[in-house]
């Protein structure tokens, strides 16, 4: 019986979530949205989180109907992520820990995504494709670690999509990736783009520089919709291919897609076709759980806390670089 509250703010989403024994009783979020053509910068993002954190926390407590004294553990994102926004949530969590006299636990953001996905979909031991603005990794569990089998060797797939949206000046509302997905549905003409798979690793920077440098020329023959379509078809094919390689390598018959890009329906569809061909199953979640949220931090924290993980107040720092395979998974066999 663990009741955990989680604070997430590693990028432009601020989330507070509350979990009681695997039941989600609050999942509240605000997103810092920048004008078209602009990305989010650390200082402005941190200011956004500072301004919103009180109202989001209050909303989460109201939604769950609990009082602070019922909480067992306060969890926050320790990393990876942008320093300044991470720090906002860490400070809030530390303050509450002292005010409410509750234990504190710092959580790896990537582990949060994986455990959230497993909770929602009931996938048992999946090969995990973790795709977001900052991460692109193929992960499988082996002997107490989530091991990284493949990853991007330069930029993350979500970063490639976001920056391409900026090239086209697409809106960042509700998210650049969502707007690319909608535009891609109207695209018809396929433009061949660099396809770069190295073993189980991928590279996206070549595609992005091609788009950035040639955009004016490309727009003479292709519509923005065509370009969104071609971009999605190419980068998702690369992701599905390395996922299949990892599955063959590990002998796995389940795939779980997590992270913000994971709610893209076209990616889920392509993954489904691949899985059908090899009698495997694909698991994915929608934007409530795929996109960064507080619940994932609360749930991963609840798992770690139940299996005996503790953190001293003096260790409650943040780190921008915190790899998925750095965490010892104490809650799985």
């Amino acid at each position: 019986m663990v009741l955990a509250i989680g604070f997430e703010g590693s990028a432009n989403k601020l989330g507070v979530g509350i979990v009681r024994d695997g039941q989600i009783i609050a999942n509240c979020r605000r997103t810092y949205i920048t004008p078209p053509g602009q990305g989010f910068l650390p200082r402005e993002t941190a200011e956004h989180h500072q301004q919103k954190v009180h109202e989001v926390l209050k909303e989460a407590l109201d939604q769950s109907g609990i009082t602070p004294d019922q909480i067992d553990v306060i969890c926050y994102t320790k990393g990876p992520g942008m320093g300044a926004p991470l720090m906002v949530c860490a400070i809030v969590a530390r303050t509450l820990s002292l005010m409410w006299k509750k234990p504190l636990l710092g959580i790896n953001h990537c582990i949060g995504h994986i455990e959230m996905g497993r909770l929602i979909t009931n996938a048992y031991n999946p090969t995990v494709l973790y795709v977001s603005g900052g991460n692109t990794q193929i992960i499988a569990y082996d002997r107490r670690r989530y091991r990284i089998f493949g990853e991007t060797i330069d930029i993350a797939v979500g970063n490639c999509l976001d920056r391409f949206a900026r090239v086209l000046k697409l809106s960042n509302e509700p998210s650049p990736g969502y707007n690319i997905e909608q535009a891609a549905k109207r695209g018809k003409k396929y433009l061949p783009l660099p396809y770069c798979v190295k073993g189980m690793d991928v590279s996206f920077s070549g595609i992005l520089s091609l788009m950035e440098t040639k955009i004016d020329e490309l727009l003479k023959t292709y519509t923005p919709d065509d370009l969104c379509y071609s971009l999605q078809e190419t980068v998702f094919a690369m992701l599905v291919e390395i996922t299949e390689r990892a599955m063959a390598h590990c002998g796995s018959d389940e795939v779980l897609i997590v992270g913000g890009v994971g709610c893209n329906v076209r990616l889920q569809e392509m993954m489904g076709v691949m899985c059908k061909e090899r009698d495997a199953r694909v698991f994915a979640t929608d934007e409530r759980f795929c996109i960064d949220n507080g619940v994932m931090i609360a749930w991963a924290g609840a798992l770690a806390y139940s299996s005996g993980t503790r953190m001293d107040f003096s260790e409650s720092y943040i780190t921008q670089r915190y790899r998925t395979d750095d965490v010892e998974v104490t809650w799985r066999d």
Partner: protein
Amino acid sequence: MDESEPQLLKQGAEARVYICKYLGRDTVIKERFQKKYRHPDLDVEIVKERIRNEARSILRCKFANIRTPALYLVDFERRKIYMEYLATNITVKDFIAKHGTANEHFEKIAKTIGETLRKLHDNNIVHGDLTTSNMLLIPKLQAGAEQIDPAWLAKGHVELVMIDFGLSYTDASIEDKGVDLYVLERALLSTHSNYEDLFAIILKAYVVSNPKGNANETIKRFEEVRARGRKRTMVG
């Protein structure tokens, strides 16, 4: 007909592998079947490129005296490539899984891997998918012997064969070579995480195996590629 009915040997992630008799020889057919999840134009382009890469690198390896399956036939229309079938073999992955790294031949095998990679790179061939599943050990016939010695593995009479050149290319830059080593290191870390010294032995053999050439630049680039990976901030 000089081709017997092919038998499916295994279905991998991107190809079906059959065995058959072709012109009287035991032959492997690797068919890169259509992937329905990807755009048909992209699919055709990828398959053509990979068949081309595989054939080209096998030929280049032959000139460089690196053992690979011999190439028999390339059929772009049917997406097939015909190669020598090596009936008696064990992948390096299975060898390590079965015999561990404490056995007497392990170090020699690891060294051979390093030397072979160096030979590949010195000939500007980059494999592109270096894993222990893509390295085979086959019996090495001893002088005067006609038959395979059943105890070939225990005696360490092995030869290293590189396979799966679909992601390879033959005009490799320093960066490509660095990435090639990085891909191998990552594959070893995830597959053989309990044998930490494996990559170190391979890399050492890679460096010293050709005293005339210079691997410093490649090693330097490899370290840069690795640093890029580890230092990535992974925001969001």
